[in-house]
């Protein structure tokens, strides 16, 4: 297997509803990544693109081929990846595999989504398509509803009183808002830095016990990364970021995960694969952009990734262990909560953030000191698809 480097990254600002089309959004991110890589579109051998709901957002299917042609990547294979919110991470991981195999030397991977453009009702309906359509959706379950149920289950399983848990979850949102407020490409850039526990708990109830400030927003946005073989990367950049480990795992509907919940078994398996491939352990990770679609999701994720003991992540956040420069810096970008969550683009957005952290290029307030090893964690649907990627400085 060849070594694979990230040689360039690009991203639009993540935002609420906006007017650019999906291919226009992707072009903005992709051309940034291509320019940063000192490449031309004609050098790209394939496009792997995450896109979960383009059909519903614009009535546009087969988006990958249009996105490739639009930026001048003519006649290349262009594949769409759909794994709900993990779509772009699947695309990046497969791009890694193809370059590692030696079949392609340069692949563009990324994602696009216009979830915010759909509006709350349609977005809530289409996000619920990632629950089981026959055996779960008829009850009226929504995506926040899944994590609301996991919140009560977490409280009961680990004996954390629900009020205490909700306060700890609020502190997760507060930390994310603070980081996002200084990230110029975050949806909540310049906003909510003064969030308080009282404001989180007192905001609009989406589904008990999750309030608006426990939930990530609906977002529009795109992200792109260029992966190249080690040999090619040396000619393109003095700061290659190597992908040293990846993992991916899937499972069925929430109700069939009964032996493990609120632990996410597919995440434990996926992250173990990534750690093993990289020869790393959770304590080696300097920063992690993890899938905080809801405040409780941060606690659950950080435990299954091995950063904190089961049932203890909330305390870790309170003690600052998940803060920038703590035991592991979690979501210095603001995460899904504050940076935003254009679902099919989110995983590539996480790689964008980790690569820039390792290169020391983010805003000084959000820079993890001496960051050498970073990780991404992306979750799709009812915890049914998980992808993890470990990235390391190559210089």
């Amino acid at each position, binding site marked *: 297997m060849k070594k694979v480097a990230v040689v360039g990254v690009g991203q639009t600002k993540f935002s609420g509803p906006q007017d650019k089309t999906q291919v226009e959004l992707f072009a903005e991110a992709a051309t940034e990544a291509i320019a940063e890589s000192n490449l031309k579109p004609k050098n790209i051998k394939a496009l792997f693109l995450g896109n979960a709901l383009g059909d519903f957002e614009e009535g546009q299917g087969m988006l990958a081929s249009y996105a490739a042609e639009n930026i001048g990547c003519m006649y290349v294979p262009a594949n769409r990846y759909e794994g709900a919110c993990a779509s772009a991470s699947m695309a990046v991981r497969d791009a890694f595999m193809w370059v590692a195999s030696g079949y392609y030397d340069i692949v563009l991977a990324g994602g696009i989504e216009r979830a915010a453009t759909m509006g709350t009702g*349609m977005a809530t309906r289409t996000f619920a398509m990632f629950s089981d359509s*026959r055996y779960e959706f008829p009850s009226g379950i929504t995506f926040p509803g899944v994590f609301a149920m996991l919140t009560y289950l977490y409280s009961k399983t680990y004996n954390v009183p629900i009020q205490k848990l909700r306060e700890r979850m609020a502190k997760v949102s507060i930390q994310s808002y603070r980081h996002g407020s200084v990230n110029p490409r975050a949806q909540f850039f310049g906003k909510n830095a003064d969030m308080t526990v009282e404001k989180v708990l007192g905001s609009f109830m989406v589904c008990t016990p999750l309030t608006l400030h426990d939930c990530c927003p609906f977002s529009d946005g795109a992200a792109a990364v260029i992966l190249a073989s080690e040999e090619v990367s040396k000619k393109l950049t003095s700061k290659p970021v190597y992908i040293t480990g990846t993992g991916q795992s899937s499972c069925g509907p929430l109700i069939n995960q009964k032996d493990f919940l609120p632990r996410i078994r597919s995440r434990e398996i996926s992250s173990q694969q990534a750690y093993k491939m990289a020869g790393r352990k959770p304590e080696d990770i300097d920063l992690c952009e993890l899938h905080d679609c809801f405040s409780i999701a941060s606690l659950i994720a950080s435990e299954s990734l091995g950063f904190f003991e089961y049932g203890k992540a909330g305390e870790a956040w309170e003690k600052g262990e998940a803060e920038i420069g703590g035991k592991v810096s979690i979501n210095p970008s603001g995460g899904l909560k504050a940076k935003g969550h254009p679902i099919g683009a989110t995983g590539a957005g996480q790689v964008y953030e980790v690569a820039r952290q390792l290169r020391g290029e983010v805003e000084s307030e959000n820079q993890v000191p001496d960051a050498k090893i970073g990780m991404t964690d992306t979750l799709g649907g009812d915890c049914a698809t998980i992808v993890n990627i470990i990235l390391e400085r190559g210089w």
Partner: protein
Amino acid sequence: MEQKLYFKDYNEALKQNKLLGLKCRACGTITVPPKMACRQCGSPDMEVTEVKTDGKIITFTTIFVGAEGRESEVPYTVVIVELEEGPWLMGNLEGIDPKAVSIELIGKKVKMSTKVFPGDKYSAGETARPVFSLVN
């Protein structure tokens, strides 16, 4: 290979308040709702069985923001119930005030009946949904 129990037959039975599942000949696990392979061991060697509908609440939520087309249903309470024979089932909890739910619900015993979700333009038809109520 034919699946031992299909959605269509499961759904028709559920409308009659009858819960069909699959009992694994290899490991004894009951799988509900139907799938090709045992949820525990992956064996396809299962037989159709009627499953007891008594159970207890594992977790719940009351939803205030509904999907497009279902806004008029809010607020409503969704529960996951563990049936006596092991499987988890997602459904609704009725006969309570959805706005007044609390974590005390977890562990409470419930009995099952059903209603029908008529479906929307995406859902390929109607689907029976379990509706639970507390057992006093």
